């Protein structure tokens, strides 16, 4: 049976809305500063900026980013 037109539109709109919300959720999560270190064996650790190790990583990253200059220029 062919679905009624409004059902088709509703399904499509709901689908797009879900995609958008998932994208925004991922983007929100990624917008938080993060620092990850990986080792040859496959171990990976994340560090918060509040920790001493994380602060050192963010400080070092800022120095490297500074070499790129202003991206808007």
């Amino acid at each position, binding site marked *: 049976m062919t679905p009624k037109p409004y059902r088709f539109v509703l399904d499509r709109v709901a689908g797009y809305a879900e995609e958008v919300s998932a994208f925004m959720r991922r*983007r929100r999560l*990624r*917008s938080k*500063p*993060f*620092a*990850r*270190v*990986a*080792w*040859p*064996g*496959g*171990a990976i*650790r994340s*560090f918060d900026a509040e920790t001493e*190790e994380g602060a*050192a*990583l*963010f*400080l*070092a*990253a*800022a*120095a*490297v*980013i*500074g*070499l*790129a*200059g202003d*991206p808007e220029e």
Partner: protein
Amino acid sequence: METVLTASSASEPPGDAARGLARLRELSPDILAAAVLTRSGQPIASDPAGDWQGAVAGLWAAAEATEATGAGAGPDAARVHIGTEDGEVFAVRDDAYAVVAVTRRFALASLMLADLRALLRDLDAEPQSPASSEEVSA
């Protein structure tokens, strides 16, 4: 103005590291700056020029200061990925070389790391001679 990379001076032809770096930037428009260094921290090629030696040494020192936990963790960090509001830093290294790239926010991490590792593999295939990097304009 077009930027051309040289390995040590304008009279020498650009090495594979410089060419690889230029290719990397072509492949990844998100990259704002990048450098190839030896494992010991000697710059081989960079774009733009700058104190990559000091900055990258600080990055690896901070990474090494962290303790690896979990099974399979080795003594030295092999990869660092840091995201800040100003951009992201990707750094990978093997026994011989290190490649560091600064990108815009939200660069695709998997793609970027794959590109950096590919460059490392290319460098391993043909050893480079460490030299101070220099930028010239064509």
